[in-house]
């Protein structure tokens, strides 16, 4: 029997286990001391303790995870998202141990993890990038100011080793720049062990749109359309949609094509996401980064395409022939929306709010309602991991209907014991600009007062 180890926790581990089981895999979970009775442990056929709660002593400990894979007789490791999913060394170790790795090659992971190198790859593939600088020493103030003057304000100070929205800050003026550069650099040093930064133009009125690609590793690539991810706080997405609404046809075609060309140029293998910013004033789009893993918001794509992205990933890892998908005419139906439920306090700068889930009731799943969570009533949300506690996903014939359905199911969510962003999500769904699709990446910042006025 085929056996898969899932090197992750929470909702994504549960979601991967579900597909593995449907495909006849036996499943192996790993868990930290904080997750002994977690849902992903309960769902898996077998499970192994890998260490104390902090991630660097458990879920980021690649050697012990590989050891457990071998011990359990697993043939394949799925890393999920976050944690070790974009760790090139882990991918290498998995393959060196004779196990199948679910993801692109370690060389591709390494290349895309370096935001400077990823920019160069995009340029070579003919994909537009934002005006930006080469890596800069954050203490070289004259060079910072010269580059900034050249690029124009406002601009983004970005960590070369950053990604997933971490390690970025907007500089509105030249006066603020040296301080921001130093702060991004020291945060990057602490978080990614790499203090290198660069500057990039920041488009204030922009949408964040991404294309779901899938490469076969031989230069062939297909796509599963795009997602709208503009509703963000601190560069972290909280509401996503598929497809991205109201895209001019030409822009849509060029963006999808650019994403595929980029993946083709790397002989990309597996599921990947090419992220773009779309300038709302000019309809120009620019490459942001490529994520070499399954994305948190992949369910909205699955809802409109009727595809199972984890199943596709597993097929490729098992070296099944997938060439028929290259020219396949995928059909997309309706509109899908995802809301991320977080343990946090929107009114207090979105501070995380760990604690016991004394009450946790979610709407029942149907054909058009999908609930992905890794928690159940009675669990404790610990301060060690990501504050996302559930993804609520709906699909309907069109965007208006999808928003309406989401609004209905949010009313059915009951959480006690911790603070969540539930009311905040409801306020967004009731916002006239959101309803008409008049959104950009600054939507939450612009509307923060109104969106939190009813909350404590």
């Amino acid at each position: 029997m085929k056996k898969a180890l899932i090197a992750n926790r929470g909702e994504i581990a549960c979601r991967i286990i579900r597909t593995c089981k449907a495909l006849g895999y036996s499943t192996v979970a790993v868990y930290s001391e904080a997750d002994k009775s977690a849902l992903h442990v309960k769902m898996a056929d077998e499970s192994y303790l890998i260490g104390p709660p902090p991630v660097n002593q458990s879920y980021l400990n690649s050697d012990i995870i590989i050891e457990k894979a071998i011990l359990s007789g697993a043939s394949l490791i799925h890393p999920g998202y976050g944690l070790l999913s974009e760790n090139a060394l882990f991918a290498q170790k998995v393959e060196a141990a004779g196990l199948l790795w679910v993801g692109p090659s370690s060389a591709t992971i390494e290349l895309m993890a370096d935001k400077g190198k990823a920019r160069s790859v995009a340029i070579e593939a003919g994909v537009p990038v934002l005006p930006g600088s080469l890596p800069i020493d954050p203490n070289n103030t004259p060079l910072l100011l010269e580059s900034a003057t050249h690029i124009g304000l406002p601009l983004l100070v970005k960590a070369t080793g950053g990604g997933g929205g971490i390690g970025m800050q907007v500089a509105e003026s030249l006066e603020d720049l040296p301080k921001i550069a130093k702060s991004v650099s020291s945060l990057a040093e602490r978080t990614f062990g790499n203090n290198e930064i660069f500057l990039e133009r920041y488009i204030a009125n922009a949408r964040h749109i991404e294309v779901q690609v899938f490469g076969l590793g031989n230069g062939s690539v297909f796509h599963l359309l795009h997602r709208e991810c503009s509703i963000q706080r601190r560069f972290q997405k909280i509401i996503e949609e598929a497809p991205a609404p109201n895209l001019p046809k030409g822009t849509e075609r060029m963006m999808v094509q650019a994403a595929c060309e980029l993946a083709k140029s790397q002989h990309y293998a597996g599921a990947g996401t090419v992220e773009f910013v779309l300038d709302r004033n000019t309809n120009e789009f620019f490459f942001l980064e490529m994520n070499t893993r399954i994305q948190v918001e992949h369910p909205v794509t699955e809802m409109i395409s009727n595809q199972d992205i984890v199943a596709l990933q597993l097929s490729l890892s098992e070296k099944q022939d997938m060439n028929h998908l290259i020219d396949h005419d995928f059909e997309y139906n309706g509109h899908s929306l995802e809301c991320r439920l977080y343990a946090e306090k929107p009114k207090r700068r979105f501070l995380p709010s760990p604690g016991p889930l004394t009450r946790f009731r979610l709407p029942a799943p149907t054909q058009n309602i999908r609930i992905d969570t890794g928690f159940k009533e009675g669990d404790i949300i610990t301060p060690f991991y990501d504050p996302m506690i559930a993804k609520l996903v709906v699909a309907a014939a069109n965007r208006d209907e999808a928003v309406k359905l989401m609004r209905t199911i949010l009313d059915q969510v009951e959480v006690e014991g911790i603070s969540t962003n539930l009311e905040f999500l409801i306020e967004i769904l009731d916002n006239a600009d959101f309803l008409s699709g008049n959104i950009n990446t600054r939507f939450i910042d612009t509307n923060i007062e109104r969106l939190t006025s009813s909350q404590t």
Partner: protein
Amino acid sequence: MAEIKVHSDVTGTAWKIVVSEGQTVEEGDELIIAEAMKMEIPHVAPESGIVKKICIEEGASISEDDLLFIIET
């Protein structure tokens, strides 16, 4: 002369204490970076003064509302 107490905004860890006892701080200076749920949460001095007492140890677990610092203004 007055004492101002700085409490923790979050439950997590006292990831990095940036100041030492006796140090003069300006309003807005970083005192500590707490860490919770993969997030760094800086706590700054609400007013200018001297760090009279540091009430936690670096790396220790902290709870929301725990007393972190006493600042003498």
